[in-house]
């Protein structure tokens, strides 16, 4: 069972079958936050939701309260992780996932242009953006695998912002769909990368034939 699933199970334990539950998406958001406090925050929110807010606010306003608390806790917990000094790894992962593909493609494009005598009418269009997304997916997988899972909450938004800044600087205005496609690609690639790394860590070490320790 993953850590996230474990949090969700712990949180669900206290609810009666017909009692309104907190919003699932908000629970996932909090459990995906970096650092050791995410679990405490999730537990406290569930407890307050079930024990106090539901009775005093009603189900609808209680869910709104939960969302408000979850969203407002995100920056505080991320900043806490940054203060704790783990931000260097998240920054490295962000650079690998976002800036490296942009820089590599820019070099490639410059090389292509240098081989063509008449460069008029050449523009970096949708195909360039698609190529950028492909490269981003590959490097995002590597970045996700290299970054501790708890830091993805910082690494993914940081990568996205860096990528948007980098791509705007390198190619002017990217296509309208590029920022959203980039966010989906980065998130999927980095989460899959982190999961692959976790699976590899969990594979039990086979004992050597000699039976040594």
């Amino acid at each position, binding site marked *: 069972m993953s850590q996230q699933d474990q949090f969700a199970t*712990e949180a669900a*334990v*206290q609810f009666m079958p017909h009692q309104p539950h907190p919003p699932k998406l908000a629970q996932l958001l909090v459990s995906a936050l970096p650092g050791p*406090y995410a679990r*405490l*925050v999730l*537990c*406290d*929110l*569930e*407890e*307050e939701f079930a024990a*106090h807010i539901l009775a005093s606010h009603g189900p609808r306003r209680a869910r709104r309260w939960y969302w*408000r*608390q979850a969203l*407002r*806790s*995100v*920056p*505080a*917990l991320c*900043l*806490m992780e940054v*203060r704790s000094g783990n931000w260097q790894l998240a920054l490295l992962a962000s650079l690998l996932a976002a800036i490296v593909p942009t820089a590599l493609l820019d070099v490639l494009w410059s090389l292509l242009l240098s081989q063509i005598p008449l460069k008029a009418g050449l523009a970096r269009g949708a195909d360039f953006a698609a190529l950028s997304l492909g490269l981003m997916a590959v490097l995002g997988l590597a970045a996700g695998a290299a970054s501790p899972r708890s830091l993805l909450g910082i690494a993914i938004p940081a990568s996205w912002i860096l990528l948007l800044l980098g791509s705007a600087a390198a190619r002017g205005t990217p296509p309208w769909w590029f920022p959203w496609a980039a966010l989906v690609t980065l998130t999927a690639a980095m989460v899959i990368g982190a999961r692959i790394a976790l699976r590899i860590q969990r594979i039990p070490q086979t004992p050597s034939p000699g039976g040594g320790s």
Partner: protein
Amino acid sequence: MAKGDFLGEFEQIILLAVLRLQETAYGMEVRREIEARTGRENSIGAVYATLDRLEHKGLVRSREVPAPDAGGRPRRLYRVTASGLRALERSQQAVSSMLEGLRIRGARPQTA
């Protein structure tokens, strides 16, 4: 006195809430105590972030306790250290001396 020796407003409020709650001071109760007494709805994340900062400064100490009942949740209980009490006292003195002789919104002027 160095800048870091002074407490921010929210840090003071958190320390006071922990003092008031005594043995039951954990994130949710601290947040609820502040909301009940000041009317401020702070996020639980901000409360834990401030408690973490205060712990790094040595002003509070925490310990994680297992869930009190089956199916319950673990809690991190906080208590104010002697340094925390001194820091609170310093902050209170600083505010008192700044208020001395001032009238704010019709309040009576304070005399030494």
